[in-house]
């Protein structure tokens, strides 16, 4: 059973949090994620949930308190954006290495500077090697659905890792769209009770967390973490299947949109996938064989699955909403190309940077990218392997 409503992405995630009613939520305001703790506080003030909210004095402290609460045996979470995530970077690593299955609602916003409050993925991408599972959403609906799947993935005994549920700042977090909401009880049943095996407040079984570890032991801890991240892929797929069975929605590692016979594919993550799909529909009407691969799970990175999904196309545009400053493309491109290479798939792959700091990205941009891919493929057009889309000044090609 579900009910139809309309709400913003922030409202949708806060609604999911109310339905889950976790134990502890420390949070600190930062645009554009601020609404999530605001809405949760309002639910608590009105007696609609009884999570303990801690209004901490910084994001470093919000993640520190989340780690403390989770270690104590409480299902915990926080929400943040941009510089807030950057400030908690040290703690992201500690949450993951202490194997805390806590959740973070990330509302993607660019990092400073110049200071700017609008969307790109530089915050999430900056935290890509912190040991967190990262799941991205195209819409408010996906942000909602993904959040409900967060704890069943993170708390699974094969995983025991923290999880970041990401949505695009303003574009998804603030735009009001239609949504299907699950019944409260169905969500509670799906997520289940939290029964940690070892925790600080387990009377009779005290534990110590956060050791100093010398070289004789520390590397095994890292390896165990890496194995957990590998394991998480099958768990993410299982939970997604179960969710779809119960609620009828969602994707596993990525969504393949009209890719079956596509010559050219745009690989993209987040809200701009909607723009890409619209453009694909338009181009399909004109007879172009194009499609979209919308990545849902960035960590763990489904390199082989993506390579397989791209194996029959002639060229792929890898869309980056961040900058790596490495001189040859973004993180998505590096990982996709590595996956293609490992799988012996030799197709043209061009990396396009778009939408930084909230820059518009429209169907016209998608048309031009597909045009260029065609040129690269058929006419062997030489293009820079790392292109910027929609700059004020025309880029040197």
């Amino acid at each position, binding site marked *: 059973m579900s009910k139809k409503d309309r709400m913003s992405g922030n409202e949708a995630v806060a609604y999911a949090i109310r339905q889950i009613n976790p*134990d*502890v939520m*420390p949070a600190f305001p930062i645009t554009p994620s601020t609404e999530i703790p605001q809405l949760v506080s309002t639910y608590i003030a009105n007696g609609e949930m*009884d*999570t*303990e909210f*801690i*209004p*901490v*004095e*910084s994001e*470093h*402290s*919000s993640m*520190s*308190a*989340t*780690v*403390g*609460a*989770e*270690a*104590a*045996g*409480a299902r*915990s979470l926080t929400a943040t954006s941009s510089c807030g995530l950057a400030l908690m970077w*040290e*703690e992201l690593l*500690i949450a993951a290495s202490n194997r805390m299955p806590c959740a973070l609602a990330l509302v993607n916003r660019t990092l400073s500077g110049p200071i700017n409050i609008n969307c790109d993925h530089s915050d999430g991408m900056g935290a890509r090697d912190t040991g967190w599972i990262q799941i991205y959403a195209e819409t408010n609906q996906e942000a909602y659905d993904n959040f409900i799947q967060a704890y069943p993935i993170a708390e699974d005994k094969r995983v025991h890792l923290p999880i970041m549920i990401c949505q695009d700042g303003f574009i998804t977090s603030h735009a009001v769209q239609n949504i299907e909401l699950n019944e409260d009880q169905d969500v509670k049943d799906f997520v289940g009770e939290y029964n940690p095996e070892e925790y*600080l*407040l*387990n*009377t009779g079984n*005290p*534990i*110590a*967390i*956060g*050791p*100093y*570890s*010398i070289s004789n*032991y520390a590397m095994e801890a890292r390896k165990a973490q890496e194995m957990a991240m590998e394991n998480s892929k099958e768990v993410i797929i299982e939970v997604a299947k179960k969710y779809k069975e119960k609620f009828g929605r969602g994707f596993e590692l990525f969504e393949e949109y009209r890719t079956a016979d596509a010559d050219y594919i745009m690989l993209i993550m987040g809200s701009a996938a909607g723009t890409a799909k619209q453009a694909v529909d338009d181009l399909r009407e004109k007879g172009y064989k194009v499609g979209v691969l919308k990545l849902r799970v960035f960590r763990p990175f489904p390199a082989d699955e993506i390579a397989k999904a791209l194996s029959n196309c002639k060229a792929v545009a890898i869309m980056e909403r961040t900058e790596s400053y490495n001189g040859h493309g973004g993180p998505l491109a590096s990982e996709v190309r590595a996956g293609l290479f490992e799988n012996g798939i030799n197709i043209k792959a061009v990396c396009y940077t778009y939408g930084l700091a909230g820059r518009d990205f429209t169907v016209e941009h998608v048309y031009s990218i597909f045009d260029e891919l065609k040129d690269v493929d058929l006419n062997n057009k030489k293009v820079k392997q790392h292109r910027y889309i929609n700059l004020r000044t025309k880029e040197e090609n």
Partner: protein
Amino acid sequence: MAGYSLKEVMNKPERLAPGHRMCAGCGATIGVRAVLRALHEEDHAVIGNATGCLEVSSYTYPYTAWEDSYIHNAFENAGATLSGVETAYRVLKKRGRIPAEDNYKFITFGGDGGTYDIGFQSLSGAMERGHDLVYVCYDNGAYMNTGIQRSSATPQFADTTTTPVGKESNGKMQTRKDLAAIIAEHNVPYVAQTTLTKDFKDIHLKAEKAIYTEGAAFLNMLTPCPRGWRYDTPDVMKICQLAIDTCYWPMFEVDHGVWTLTYEPKNKLPIEDFLRAQGRFKHLFKPGNEDLIVQFQNEVDRRWEDLLYRCAK
């Protein structure tokens, strides 16, 4: 409090087991054990710890010296970490996931670097929000774990590795931050300053009050460091006594806003007596540096007078 018996408290089971790797003559370990003795035996505890000597020496994987549950998170966030633990306790109790009869207390230890400096914001937040926990600063007046760098708790003129004494330097230029007073200004229910005395009565009573007063409490304990202060390790208790007898380290408490002096030396000793026993102040006793000692004495006197005024003496 009547009925304090050193023999009795010393016979309680240790909650910090022997075998840890802290130095001989380290004041911090003695202070930590004294604080833990103030826990009632039937109560459980979660101990927090900022990164520092105490942490790396007491919980080196796979061994822990802590009999209670223990969490180390990072350097600057012991206050926030324990805020999370304490909040978890309240919610798990509320939701019936911890038996009603299980009583937990929350104590976190941080050195002066982790407390006065890098952990200051996290501490201030935890105090302001009023979590039911005790933050204990073991103040040895420098970043001892990383090799004796100055902190805002380092006394003026101390020779540290980032305020080295040299031709152009007499050691640290600035005087100490008065952290206990700053935390008292947070209007928390209980703040106290203490150190190690022969009968451990002062630290015991203050720790017990801090632990068993509802709300946020802060304990600042002077704990000498033989490496950084350069004294003979058996002299740790003597140095603490000199710190209080010279009024360098006054012992007081602020109980629900009421300032009380808990020790007043019969004969206030000159500051040289405290400084002379420590290698970090050796340069002050060179001919020509007499005025530095006068300066040090004046600062001690000014702060002592100020404290007497606050305590309405």
